[in-house]
């Protein structure tokens, strides 16, 4: 006999988008529950390790910077590496808009706050299928329970099973639309990290690594410093992995042994190895008008809605924002007592009012040719990098730097 639960709002997934949605409900005194597939404090699905301080402080207040256990380092150095065969160029910028966090502990800090404010989280609870009544979504069936709600926000991440069933987003991802990543964390003493990366005590670095002149496969690669380890993630299109018969781990190893990267991790010890998929930006150029984000009683947000902006330092920022906006949509629809598809369609117009969303959906340099910018002219790669900086002067400096860095053979 399966347990039955009923809440006003049900959120699927306690990742960046689900938690931000829950925060909006708790602030507005609305009863919301979350079902989460992982155990408490064991969140294993993908989450950016680099978070935007301003965004989280606006929503969660000053508490963010006090999470000393969850914070690995304060990012002060932003770099882009352009790898070539046997050599590399690097441009760097000093700023301090981000924190490097320990995902599990940061996630725990956020869930603790939400639970103390009355949000109920059902852990180790996996949404298996939708409960439909007259074709409308009424709830979610898990392995041993049924969760009913007036409205559901699906925040299940890129490996999305329920949104597919709900006919949301734009159907199944193809290999051409999927980036496959591996992530490896390599243990290195903190003094060695500070010396190798030229960092002050407790300050950190985040970097993008471009490989277009080194490996003939467009890739997205990240590197950042933790307290006493360095994380390197490498991603290529699944279709490229298949076409070139190259396993993503082999591609990742090529980056690790490149002379621009290997000195940073020498004598380090592998601590963790994981993999995840992320939607490619190509998605929106080809299918923008077909992406379905809402239906009767249901909205989709975050990675499941393909809201991942690879060109930002905080890659889950857009996911978090979409979760927040989905919740704001629900609150407005609640005021009208109408969770119909038509009523929830304001989700899209609300998203369009957001700057981050507009950056994501309207940036022609990023989306016009899908992932091609990664393998196109070096200048475009420079653009991708300085795109992150708001300050026009910063951009100008970076533009010049990247032009110099990239024209040297």
């Amino acid at each position: 006999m399966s347990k039955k639960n009923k809440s006003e709002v049900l959120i699927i997934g306690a990742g960046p988008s689900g938690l931000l949605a829950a925060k909006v409900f708790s602030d507005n005194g609305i009863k919301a529950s979350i079902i989460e597939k992982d155990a408490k404090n064991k969140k294993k699905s993908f989450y950016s390790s680099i978070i935007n301080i301003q965004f989280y402080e606006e929503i969660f207040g000053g508490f963010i910077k006090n999470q000393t256990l969850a914070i690995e380092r304060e990012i002060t150095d932003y770099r882009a590496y352009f790898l070539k065969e046997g050599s590399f160029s690097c441009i760097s910028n000093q700023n301090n808009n981000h924190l490097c966090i320990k995902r599990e502990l940061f996630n725990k800090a956020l869930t603790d706050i939400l639970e103390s404010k009355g949000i109920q989280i059902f852990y180790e609870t996996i949404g298996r299928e939708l409960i439909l009544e007259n074709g409308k979504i009424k709830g979610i069936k898990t392995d041993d329970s049924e969760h009913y709600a007036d409205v559901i926000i699906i925040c299940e991440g890129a490996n999305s099973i329920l949104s597919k069933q709900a006919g949301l987003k734009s159907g199944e991802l193809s290999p051409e639309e999927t980036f496959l990543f591996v992530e490896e964390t390599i243990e290195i003493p903190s003094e060695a990290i500070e010396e190798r990366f030229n960092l002050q005590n407790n300050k950190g670095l985040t970097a993008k690594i471009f490989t277009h002149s080194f490996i003939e496969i467009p890739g997205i690669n990240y590197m950042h410093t933790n307290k006493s380890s360095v994380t390197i993630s490498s991603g290529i299109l699944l279709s490229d992995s298949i076409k070139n018969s190259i396993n993503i781990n082999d591609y990742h190893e090529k980056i690790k042994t490149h002379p621009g990267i290997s000195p940073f991790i020498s004598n380090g010890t592998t601590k963790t190895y994981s993999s995840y998929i992320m939607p490619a930006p190509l998605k929106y150029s080809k299918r923008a008008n077909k992406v379905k984000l809402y239906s009767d009683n249901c909205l989709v947000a975050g990675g499941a809605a393909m809201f991942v902006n690879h060109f930002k330092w905080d890659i889950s920022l857009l996911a978090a924002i979409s979760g927040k906006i989905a919740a704001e949509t629900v609150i407005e629809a609640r005021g009208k007592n109408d969770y119909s598809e038509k009523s929830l369609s304001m989700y899209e117009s609300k998203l369009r009012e957001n700057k981050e969303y507009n950056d994501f959906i309207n940036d022609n340099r990023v989306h016009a040719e899908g992932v091609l910018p990664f393998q196109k002219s070096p200048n475009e790669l420079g653009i991708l990098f300085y795109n992150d900086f708001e300050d026009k002067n910063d951009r100008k400096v970076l533009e010049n730097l990247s032009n110099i860095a990239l024209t040297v053979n």
Partner: protein
Amino acid sequence: MQKTLKKIEDKLYFVPFKPNTESHIKTNAAICAGCTGKECTKFCPANVFHWSEIDKKLYINYENCLECGACTIGCPYQAIEYSHPTASFGRM
């Protein structure tokens, strides 16, 4: 010089798993037998899939699965079915 691990198998050794008794990944034996590319045996970042020429059979080491979900998307015949491992099982 470098002590970091290179091979998938070596890296997986340090990943904590609690495997269920039943696989959360299902394949279609008939389709797999007729598949020429055996793509899954190459792209999976955890080397979960192994084709045995002797048995003419695809073996699934679901115990090593990193749970990325790429297999369902990458299989050209949509013959791989992935569902999340039962709660409290899988990668820890």
